[in-house]
């Protein structure tokens, strides 16, 4: 068994069974870049078990059901020999749901999660169940919870936020909630939010006052005596040109969130990392974020220990990192210019994501 389990949670879009493979490959590449460190004194497999957590199956099944209903209605109308306007209109809407269009494969995920409390609640339970069941499996005969962390991307950040808060605050009658953050191993070591939209898409509880907050076991959420900080560390990562992370940006005030006493820890339990490198037009991609040493070093240090990668190695990695690796200066400037054009205002609300999705799709489709 690996030393720790890291749950990976995807963002918007279609995710097949092997969706996490490129993520793990990227993590391995960066892991291997730091030989002769505390990090690599054990192998990648000994250090980590990465477990993909999927919620796209819920959304895909829903869209497929709509499509099937539309398909059947179309057949019914053919059999019937007539097509009442109202039914044809309904059929058109339903049939579109299964089509491989960016709106239905990406933007609809966001709209369904944020716009439908039913979908949201179903996905919360689905994600929490995957995490809880895996932890129980790894807890073994003695019920010792393994060291565990969560790394989420894009839409997955709000999904994980909602699911973990529900898991950490659930009221289980009789024997109590094992995932009460005060219990041994119930806290996550790290919650890492990449392209964090948990504030933009928040409902209840809001992102700054939920239990998805760094602190020691038994540290109460400020102002909430009976709710406790669910993780040891919280990383929020954004890219200056990622249009999804601009509106409703996760940026607690004051910056020593959740409080100065907690932030006195080493390393700081909460850290916002901002990057601006351009290696590819898709700056929103998880792997693109992870490529930056500031991101993956912060990740490994919090997963293992702050001494996992020494400052000297960090310095070398940062100095050797090229902000426009693999691109000509002209191509990088063109990508930057295109992205700057579609960046929404910081005070926009979540429905803007529909427009951002459309614009971002057009950006990705444009040859560089």
């Amino acid at each position, binding site marked *: 068994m690996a030393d720790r389990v890291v749950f990976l949670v995807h963002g918007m879009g279609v995710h097949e069974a092997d969706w996490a493979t490129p993520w793990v490959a990227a993590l391995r590449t960066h892991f291997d870049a730091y030989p*002769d460190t*505390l990090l690599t*004194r*054990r192998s990648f497999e000994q250090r980590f078990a990465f477990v993909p957590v999927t919620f796209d199956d819920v959304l895909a*099944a*829903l869209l497929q059901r*709509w499509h099937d*209903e539309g398909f*059947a209605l179309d057949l*019914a109308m053919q*059999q019937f*020999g*007539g097509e*009442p306007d109202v*039914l044809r209109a*309904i*059929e058109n809407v339903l049939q579109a*749901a299964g089509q491989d269009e960016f709106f239905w494969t990406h933007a609809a995920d966001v709209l369904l999660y944020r*716009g*439908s*409390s*039913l*979908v949201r*609640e*179903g996905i919360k*339970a689905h994600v*929490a*169940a995957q995490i*809880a*069941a895996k932890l129980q499996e790894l*807890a073994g*005969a*003695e*019920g*010792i919870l393994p*060291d565990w962390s969560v790394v989420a991307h894009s839409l997955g950040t709000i999904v994980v936020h909602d699911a973990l808060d*529900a898991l950490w605050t*659930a*009221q*289980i009658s009789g*024997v*109590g*909630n*094992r*995932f*009460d953050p005060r*219990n*041994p*191993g119930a806290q996550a*070591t790290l919650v890492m939010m990449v392209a964090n939209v948990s504030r933009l898409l928040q409902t*209840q509880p809001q992102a700054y006052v939920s239990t998805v907050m760094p602190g*020691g*076991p*038994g*540290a109460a959420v400020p102002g909430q005596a009976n709710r406790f900080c669910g993780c*040891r560390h919280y990383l929020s990562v954004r890219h200056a040109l990622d249009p999804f992370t601009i509106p409703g940006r996760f940026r607690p005030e004051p910056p020593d969130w959740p409080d100065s*006493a907690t932030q006195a*820890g080493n390393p700081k339990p909460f850290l916002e990392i901002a990057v601006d490198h351009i290696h590819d037009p898709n700056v929103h991609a998880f792997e693109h974020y992870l490529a930056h040493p500031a991101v993956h070093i912060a990740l490994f240090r919090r997963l293992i*220990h702050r*001494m996992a990668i020494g400052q000297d190695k960090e310095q070398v990695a940062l100095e050797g990192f090229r902000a426009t690796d693999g691109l000509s200066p002209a191509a990088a400037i063109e990508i930057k210019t295109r992205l700057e054009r579609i960046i929404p205002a910081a005070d926009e609300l979540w429905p803007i994501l529909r427009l951002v999705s459309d614009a971002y799709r057009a950006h990705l489709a444009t040859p560089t």
Partner: protein
Amino acid sequence: MRLERASAVLVAAVVALGLSASTAAHAQPAAGDCDIAASEQEVQADPTVAVDVFAGLWDDRCLGFERCTQELCVRTEAWAERWRTADRAGLPEAQAEAFDLIDEIRRRADALPVNQPGVATFQRRIAAFDLDRSGDLIGELRADPQGAEWDVRNYTLFADADAIDALAILDEACAGGAPSADACLATFRTQVALFTLAGLQTRILSNILKESLEATVGYVVALDQRWQNYFRNSRAILPWELLVNGWLFRPERGFNEPPSSQIILMHPTAAMGLEDAQLSDASAALVLELAGWYGWRWGGADQTEMKAPLRLPGWLDDFPLGGSVILGFDGDRDPGFGGVLHLPRNWSLGGMVDRGGDFTLLVSVDLLKLFIDPQSQRRELVSLFRGD
């Protein structure tokens, strides 16, 4: 020849030195077999490897966890086995034994040198477990662990101001410029002892909380199953129905149960229209459920199955029920108005009356199946009504 041999020896020596230097820098500890005494010797010989050796012991789960071979570890493991298998009669005994073990951990912590880093903090935190054996304190611990929080991970015990970071402590005590090898060894021994006791305490608490783990996971998994069944098997799931039913759904913070009823709205379906008793004259009809209701209760062994809204006898209890007001399209005549009842096994039965006053009996089945193979579905429908 002699020169070649000498060169080969020299190269081998250089390679060996290089390897040993590399190994020393990030050694797999001698305690790969959890030999604490061998680890101490290694640290005494070269204090700069203390961090690495300690990390190895922790990573290999030698400190308090399953690979620990110390006497108290063996005792704890035996207790854990008894705790897991204790029946009602044996439970008080196993519970008393847990108190004994926690007391023993506290006693051993109290015996550690208080001038060593982390010891005072550890002693203070373990003192919170000075349990009153007369009450059901293990039960209370499960329900409300206030004041008895315990957490160890990543070479660190506790967090915030109480954090005991073994690697940082050893780095300070044993890295270059440390006072002496003996001082480093003393710190190493203390950290090994502290983390062994911490691991044991974690094991005892985790075993006590195992029932709670099973209950919590069981609840969340069943909740997920109910939600998946809601999306898979309920009726009103079209986009506008989700919108309306979502608006009526008032979730609170935390987990929420799926609803046990739905509003049906503008829901298209297909039916067989029967204008007279001649079932063989059944014709296709289109039905738009203008508005309706569909309800159930969650039942079954794990409360994840959709059953009749009220308890019904026999197999009737196995299905949700409901009904809708409909607009029906039957052949080339004007649309008719009527109603349908949603019955078990995905059947709906109803009727409509058109402007001319003609009545049509409507029987609908699964829309998709009906029209993928209409002839077989029609035969099945007719045979069902004839009682074949």
